[in-house]
């Protein structure tokens, strides 16, 4: 055991040393916002950032889970280990969910090189759960060579995967819409790679052509031109090698162009600000409920004597004074 590992909290050390049961339990604790996970997550951060995190996103029913299975197969044939997070929606009514991404996973009961975890979105918008980023990091710290994150079936504005993934694959199928759909903002803007799945269906060539035209109108601001790959759920070998080679090429582009560091700085700054905002928000909410002067402020807004913007100004000033 190296010194650095020995200094980790026991659960973190177990995760680094390959204890899958502790990994699974820690993921649950992270999902539940359980304080017992806090030290583990903090202590393992320095061990993340090594594996490519590949996002697989696209509308419901395009074959994301099947594609994930095919990619897992490809990676195992290359002798790479894989951690997978599959996100499915939670009910806005009951909070319950049916997590069915695992169903496409080929049987690998005795393969320690794959770890698959299903996750419910638990009310988060954007296509992933609030805990998905930290869970992907845990898998990274646990030593998996590649992390795959499959999003909820996404709509046009579900682009949260770009805050987590180093490479985002946007999956579509033939006949999703005409070429004007490809011009619209949102989902299609975040693609590092386009995947036309079910390429054996009629209309596949047109779908690829529409995407190719989109790419010629201008690639990503980084200068990367997203490749377009056709894959098939009927024959899961079609296009998978090419798809994975494109992921590798994109990861190399991120390193060579300096885009990885730029992207990381951007993503991490919004993560830090987001965490700080959550905490400040909770504190301000608690004060608003506790502090008599602030409760009177709220009374004033309820009575339409003070407007919410003015009240917010006062709350912020109050927060600054007392911090």
């Amino acid at each position, binding site marked *: 055991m190296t010194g650095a590992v020995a200094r980790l909290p026991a659960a973190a050390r177990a995760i680094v040393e390959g204890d899958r049961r502790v990994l699974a339990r820690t993921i649950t604790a992270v999902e539940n916002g359980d304080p017992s996970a806090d030290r583990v997550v903090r202590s393992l951060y320095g061990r993340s950032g090594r594996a490519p995190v590949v996002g697989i996103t696209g509308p419901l029913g395009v074959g994301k889970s099947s594609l994930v299975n095919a990619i897992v197969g490809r990676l195992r044939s290359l002798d790479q280990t894989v951690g997978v997070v599959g996100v499915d929606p939670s009910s806005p009514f009951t909070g319950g969910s049916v997590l069915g991404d695992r169903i496409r996973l080929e049987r690998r*009961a*005795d393969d320690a090189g794959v770890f698959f975890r*299903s996750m419910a979105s638990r009310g988060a918008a954007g296509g992933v759960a609030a805990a998905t980023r930290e869970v992907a990091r845990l898998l990274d710290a646990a030593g998996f060579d590649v992390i795959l994150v499959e999003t909820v079936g996404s709509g046009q504005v579900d682009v949260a995967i770009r805050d987590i993934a180093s490479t985002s694959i946007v999956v579509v199928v033939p006949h999703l819409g005409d070429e004007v759909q490809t011009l619209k903002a949102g989902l299609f803007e975040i693609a590092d790679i386009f995947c036309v799945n079910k390429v054996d269906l009629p209309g596949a060539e047109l779908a690829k052509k529409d995407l190719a035209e989109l790419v010629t109108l201008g690639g990503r601001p980084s200068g990367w031109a997203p490749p377009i790959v056709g894959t098939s759920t009927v024959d899961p070998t079609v296009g998978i090698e090419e798809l994975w080679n494109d992921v590798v090429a994109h990861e190399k582009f991120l390193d060579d162009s300096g885009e990885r560091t730029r992207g990381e700085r951007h993503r991490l700054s919004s993560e830090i600000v987001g965490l700080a905002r959550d905490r400040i928000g909770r504190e301000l909410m608690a004060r608003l409920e506790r502090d008599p002067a602030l409760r009177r402020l709220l009374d004033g807004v309820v009575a339409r004597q003070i407007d919410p913007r003015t009240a917010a100004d006062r709350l912020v000033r109050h927060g600054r004074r007392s911090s």
Partner: protein
Amino acid sequence: MPRAHGAKRSPIRVLIAKPGLDGHDRGAKVVARALRDAGMEVIYAGLRQTPEEIVRAALEEDVDLIGLSILSGAHMALFPRILSLLKEQGGEPIPVFAGGIIPDEDARKLKKAGIRAIFGPGTSLEEIVSTAQSLARRSA
């Protein structure tokens, strides 16, 4: 690490799987849907699972509860195997319940072996949901 159904009442996670070779999954789907509507997170593993796959999924997904559906008649071979794998690999026991066509005599033996509840045809969904809830909460 302690299991986490703490102050915030985190959702119960339950694995629903069909061991063995029969292809009749309507019962499993109806139960999955009912547990979902009761606010649980249901990992639906689907058809034709081996005991090894079921146990692996239960541990990776860190479920509070496992529900098995079987209509093939192979329950006396498959269920004890699942229970013994869980004991070998699991550490803490995860409660297992089952549903399907299971003769009373077999059901008695299986309960003795550690299957916590067995539901035959005609059981109401309310009964399945409330049993699942109490099994999961008791183990938490």
